[in-house]
């Protein structure tokens, strides 16, 4: 598919046109933090932004989601609910596109989860390449998620006062077709893009001692590490880290009865393995009661279990969990300490 080039002002205009009729979500600064929300005007968009507070994957996997509606007014009736709104998400970072890929694999490929699929299919992702590192918490390069390898419909790379636009899907091609002044890219543009990418490589350092493919072994060798106890004492089990994580997907399921008492719905809600009740069973046993085991589970799930099960890393290195942890638990430090840096109590 032919790449395009657009000026920033042309893109802003096209976005506003789109937003006049469609739900366009983009990073917006509010109260000092950047979050994805619906926009109408290009002026609302945040210019430089760290990964948003909540990841854009929230549009495919909302915090609360209806699964079934049922009623027993005239005999039992139950029907599935597939809810989806067409949303164009502008400014998705490469790490978050990798997170979409992981969720696609779990909810679409391993399972045919129509609730996820309906929402996901209704999303159009306009990616935005990262040309410089965001802050000290991110480690995308070590997790192999700096490069946007797929998942996007369109991918923008900033070049001077314009964007180089790569087209990833037929949906993306249809969308760019509606944009004004998106000229076809020529040799000179591609050369410029290559240079930009090269410059980027040198800007991003590897922050992990290992790359993601070595993490499963490092974690397997660390079953008995003292670090888990140290972290277990520190961690508050608040669950903030799992709430902001783009690759966390655990949920709980609850029924609600409507006011008529003859009908209701079943919904799933985000849940967190950091909470004690998460693995409790009927006999009262909790299989991951001590906090150190829960912290250990999270890092193993991110760095090892998903890799072993699905062949892809369970963490995209966005750094959100570290940014939002009240006691400063950071995956960069954890993974590096397991690798052999000294553990201090």
């Amino acid at each position, binding site marked *: 598919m032919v790449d395009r080039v657009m000026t920033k002002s042309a893109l802003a205009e096209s976005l506003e046109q789109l937003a006049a009729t469609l739900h366009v979500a983009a990073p917006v600064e509010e109260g000092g933090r950047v979050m994805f929300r619906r926009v109408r005007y290009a002026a609302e968009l945040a210019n430089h932004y760290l990964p948003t507070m909540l990841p854009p994957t929230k549009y495919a996997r909302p915090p609360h989601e209806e699964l079934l509606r049922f009623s027993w007014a005239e005999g039992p009736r139950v029907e599935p609910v*597939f809810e989806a709104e067409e949303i164009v998400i502008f400014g998705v970072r490469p790490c978050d596109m990798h997170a979409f890929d992981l969720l696609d694999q779990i909810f679409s490929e391993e399972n045919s989860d129509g*609730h996820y699929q309906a929402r996901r*299919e209704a999303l159009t992702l306009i990616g935005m390449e990262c040309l410089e590192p965001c802050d000290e918490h991110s480690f995308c390069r070590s997790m192999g998620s700096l490069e946007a390898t797929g998942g996007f419909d369109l991918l923008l790379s900033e070049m001077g006062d314009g964007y180089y636009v790569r087209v990833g899907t037929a949906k993306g091609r249809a969308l760019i077709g509606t944009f004004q002044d998106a000229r076809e890219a020529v040799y000179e543009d591609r050369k410029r893009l290559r240079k930009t990418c090269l410059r980027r490589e040198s800007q991003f350092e590897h922050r992990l001692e290992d790359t993601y493919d070595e993490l499963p072994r490092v974690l397997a060798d660390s079953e008995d590490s003292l670090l888990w106890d140290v972290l277990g004492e520190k961690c508050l089990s608040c669950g903030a880290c799992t709430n902001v994580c783009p690759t966390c997907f655990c949920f709980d399921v609850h029924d609600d009865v409507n006011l008529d008492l003859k009908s209701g719905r079943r919904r799933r809600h985000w849940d967190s393995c950091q909470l004690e009740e998460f693995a409790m069973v009927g006999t009262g046993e909790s299989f991951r009661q001590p906090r150190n085991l829960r912290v250990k589970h999270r890092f193993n799930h991110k760095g090892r279990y998903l890799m072993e099960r699905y062949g892809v890393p369970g963490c995209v290195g966005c750094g959100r969990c570290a940014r939002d942890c009240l006691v400063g638990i950071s995956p960069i430090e954890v993974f590096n300490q397991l690798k052999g840096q000294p553990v201090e109590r």
Partner: protein
Amino acid sequence: MTVVNIQADTKLHLESPFLPAPAEIVRKDRLNDTETLYQLRLADGTELGQLPGQFVEVSVFGIGEAPFSVSSSPTRGDAFELCIRRVGDVTSALERLALGEHIGIRGPLGRGFPLEQMRGRNVLIIAGGLGIVPLRSLITNILDEREDFSNVTILYGCKTPKELLFRDELNRWQAREDIDFRITTDIAEPGWKGNVGPVTTLFRRLAVDPRNTVPVMVGPPVMFKHVVKQVLACGIPEDRIILSLERRMKCGIGECGHCQINGIYVCQDGPVFTYAELKRLEEAML
């Protein structure tokens, strides 16, 4: 199907893995203070098609969903049975339902007992407490196809004689010449003439042929610790020791994360495992 605001031209064929099939309660037998045996039939007339050891997710709409082992054998026709202990919301709501009312069923789910690998061999079944519920499916299946199996030994332990489940069947099993069936209870009660002590005490007078015996055990975590030790001491290899685990489950299909033991999902990879698969997993608690 409720579809809200999906583009009309979506080519996706959407399916919900959470949609249960209606099933009618055709029989309800109170077995004990807290356990009830439910016989159910799928409303569309199809068989459940379970393997012994598999489970279903049961919905009481408006209350919730919970996993239960299928307790009946696939050799016994189109109705199936669940034996359920009342412990909370779903299990209490089930008790209040009358014959002829409908519940929702998803499944059968998970990996059952390796029945095919057990044919032609000696089978040693060890049940602790509610562990008899899934094992009853296996035992009935084995007894219905008795000629396919070599020696069959069944050990069943409960806290008190009062808690023994399926008494009629226990009597019938006890009367059979072609199986060795033994019962024990942790605590004796007046009138109890059987063995007293944990299920491991039944091992003492047992001759186990390590080359040809498949031990299958289901019970509380403490039971596993002791019984595994004992069957290992008999010389049975780790990958022939079969056990079934219970964990919290919210989906049964490998999505919700609740049932995870380290990197494995009990709902999909289990609930039946070999000891070899679990022994290195810290969270298996064996």
